[in-house]
């Protein structure tokens, strides 16, 4: 039996749209293909959960709302007072056998991820996002769940002027259309997917 082909959410829109020729783009769009996304639910005070996460992934959950802790290629995003998203670029995160009283649910295929970067990235996001993204208010390693263009999006400020946008997989193509249109006036480069 041949190995199953994996079809990424942005395959049909990103393929062929890459245009690395755009000079000095205001925004660059690149699809991200994190290896693993794991939803964590539980009580942050639960020692069992905390130690399981530390031992399995070397991750400490952020307790301050809307912040991110990073450990190597794994980021832990605060989603709610008892909910986090672990994202690993490279590793397949295997849920530990006994995560204390918490639960870990694999959502690696549930969200599609775009990375937007460049000097005009905030101007583009502000077209659809009501959050205050000024660097003082929304610095690096801050995240938020919000709605952008009526799509539920997790926003992660990974580096200065670099944002990762996680949208539900079913919205990916529609969201791609919105993002590329919003970027157009600033000059937009579409880079190949990064995994």
């Amino acid at each position: 039996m041949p190995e199953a082909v994996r079809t990424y959410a942005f395959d049909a829109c990103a393929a062929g749209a890459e245009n690395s020729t755009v000079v000095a783009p205001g925004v660059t769009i690149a699809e991200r293909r994190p290896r693993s996304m794991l939803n964590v639910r539980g009580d942050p005070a639960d020692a069992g959960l905390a130690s399981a996460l530390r031992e399995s992934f070397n991750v400490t959950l952020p307790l301050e709302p809307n912040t991110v802790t990073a450990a190597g290629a794994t980021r832990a995003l605060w989603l709610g007072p008892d909910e986090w998203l672990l994202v690993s670029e490279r590793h397949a995160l295997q849920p530990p056998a006994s995560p204390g009283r918490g639960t870990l649910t694999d959502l690696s295929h549930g969200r599609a991820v775009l990375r937007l970067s460049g000097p005009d990235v905030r101007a583009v996001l502000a077209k659809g996002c009501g959050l205050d993204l000024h660097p003082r208010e929304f610095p690096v390693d801050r995240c938020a769940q919000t709605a952008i263009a009526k799509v539920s999006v997790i926003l992660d400020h990974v580096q200065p002027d670099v944002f990762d946008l996680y949208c539900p997989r079913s919205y990916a193509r529609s969201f791609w259309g919105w993002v590329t249109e919003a970027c157009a006036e600033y000059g937009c480069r579409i880079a190949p997917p990064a995994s």
Partner: protein
Amino acid sequence: MLSIPCPYCGPRDVTEFSYGGDGNVRPPTGPDAASEAAWSAYVYLRANPRGVHEELWQHSAGCRRWIRVTRNTLTHEMHGSAPARASAAAS
């Protein structure tokens, strides 16, 4: 557009929230638990206060918490918010 203070995420636009109604109604308990009238009141009867009102909202496009918001229905002034469960547990 109202700005609703989420106790976790801070002020967010009302478009991120869904309205959950009067925060003061409680399902009948004790002797009332079997009373149809008490259940009907719980499900259907609502005050429509002019002024300060405690109501439930869900931060549905954010942290998905149900929260208890104290809002002046006349002026939209917000008098704070708290996780919905804290007050529910206290009552």
